[in-house]
């Protein structure tokens, strides 16, 4: 049972539109493949797929090929999320109303591409999202404002200022991260052991 600001991803489903931009990382590619069974074969003629390989797990070695078989009008493979963002920003800048966005994979990918989408004039409630893969979180330290990537423990140490942070479920779309608050502020020497919690 989580809190209302914790994002929920309802799963990829085809949206009404005339252009479709699909962005996925890691296991998220499979969500696109799964959705392809719900649409007519020519649906992808209006689609642009961007796939982030990331820390390519052998389990997804064949993902690029599976996605290319969908024969989208445009296809691109990026090594990391960061390297994919400029291309995504440009596609969104050129887009018209009727372009629909689909994000699948880690929360980090979804959150960062969502930020670009919001800045380009889209609304989060009309973007289709599906979480696949690790539950590791992006965490913003409320004290130093630094963002720590791939947080899997509770508590977690801020990679910028070194404070140990309670990893909250409170999430900001604008920042694309969960909130981290110092867990040992009242008793500085009392730091609970880090337990793996978000895998």
């Amino acid at each position: 049972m989580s809190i209302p600001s914790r994002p929920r991803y309802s799963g990829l489903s085809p949206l009404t539109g005339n252009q479709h931009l699909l962005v996925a990382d890691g296991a998220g590619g499979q969500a696109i493949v799964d959705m392809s069974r719900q649409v007519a074969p020519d649906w992808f003629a209006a689609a642009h797929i961007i796939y982030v390989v990331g820390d390519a797990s052998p389990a997804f070695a064949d993902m690029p090929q599976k996605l290319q078989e969908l024969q989208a009008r445009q296809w691109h493979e990026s090594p990391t999320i960061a390297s994919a963002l400029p291309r995504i920003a440009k596609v969104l800048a050129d887009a018209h109303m009727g372009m629909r966005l689909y994000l699948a994979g880690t929360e980090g990918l979804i959150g960062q591409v969502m930020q670009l989408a919001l800045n380009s004039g889209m609304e989060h409630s009309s973007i289709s999202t599906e979480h696949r893969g690790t539950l590791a979180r992006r965490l913003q330290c409320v004290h130093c404002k630094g963002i720590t990537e791939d947080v899997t423990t509770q508590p977690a140490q801020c990679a910028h200022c070194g404070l140990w942070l309670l990893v909250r479920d409170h999430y900001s779309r604008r920042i694309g991260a969960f909130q981290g608050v110092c867990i040992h502020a009242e008793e500085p020497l009392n730091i609970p052991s880090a337990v793996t919690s978000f895998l």
Partner: protein
Amino acid sequence: MSQHVLQFKEETFRDDFVYSNSRWAIDRFPFPFDKDSYMYAVNLEPHTTGRAGSIYEKSFDVDEHYVAEMRERALTLLEDPLRCQSLPHMTLAGWDLLELIMTHKARDYPELFELHRDGLQWRWVNKPLGIEQSFIFGDEATLPYGPMEYITRQSQGDWCVLDQRDANLWMDAGMVTTQADWSLDFDIGMNFFEWHAPVPLAHELGIFQRALKFLLAIPQGAPARRLNWTMTVHPRHDTSPENYPKWGPDRTTVTAENVAELMYLRVELQSFWRLPRSNALVFPIRCYLIQLNELVSHPKWAKRFHRVLRDLPKELAEYKGFERNRALMVQWLSQFDDGALTSPGGGPN
């Protein structure tokens, strides 16, 4: 018209904590409990003004702490500019807010504030802060700050400016330096349910759905208000999450001997005003602090507060951050509680 003449005090809300309430300030304190127990409610009511001597007499109450509080705000902003932010589409709402505060203050406290308007050429005089500013209404280049920041640097309490769209309210601008432990920088851009997400229990009670429906319908000229409360150690204004490592340890310094001196009841007068040109809603959160020692000078408050704290659900005390010291407070307050009946309503009698 209140006969009380305001004497602005030289106070600090950090470091040496030089702060106290005069008898006048104590007697008008917005004690938030109208009965001997507390639970969340949509306790919104019309923000009717006029009750002489009360904090509700004027639209935006100015008290003896005004000058000191504005100095404290300026210090907080020097340390952390992220406490005041306005997303680009909220500038029009900022002008609405500037007009609202200036016109009401000039009307309600003519001995302290003046507003002279000649078309769009305005001149604002703030005597307590020694400010005189000529500017063109609507032209940001003629003010030293954006309109929201400009006027809220001169207005007690926090200010959240909410964009109204898609049947929801969005916290898209704010001046937040006296908050009870939430971050504007993190929450800016969130909607009504999202920024309230961390509040325990209230969502299940449907509090926020009902409150939102009411707030969305507030028209111009009919503001509403409610009270909220928590506890703070020392009369500290900056209890932001950003600075939690600085003020958090204070909670561990409270003892049976100093509890009445260190613990402050912190009451927020929240109000909601429709802004005319932007159709936004402004949500001022005005913070009033009273030391436990000061509070018990009214026997009814002492008894009632003892009972409220004693019986409060643990989740609320934890969320409000004082569970650690609750037993100490309840113990100290118990000496004032003879078990007698207390009258309904929050007034001292």
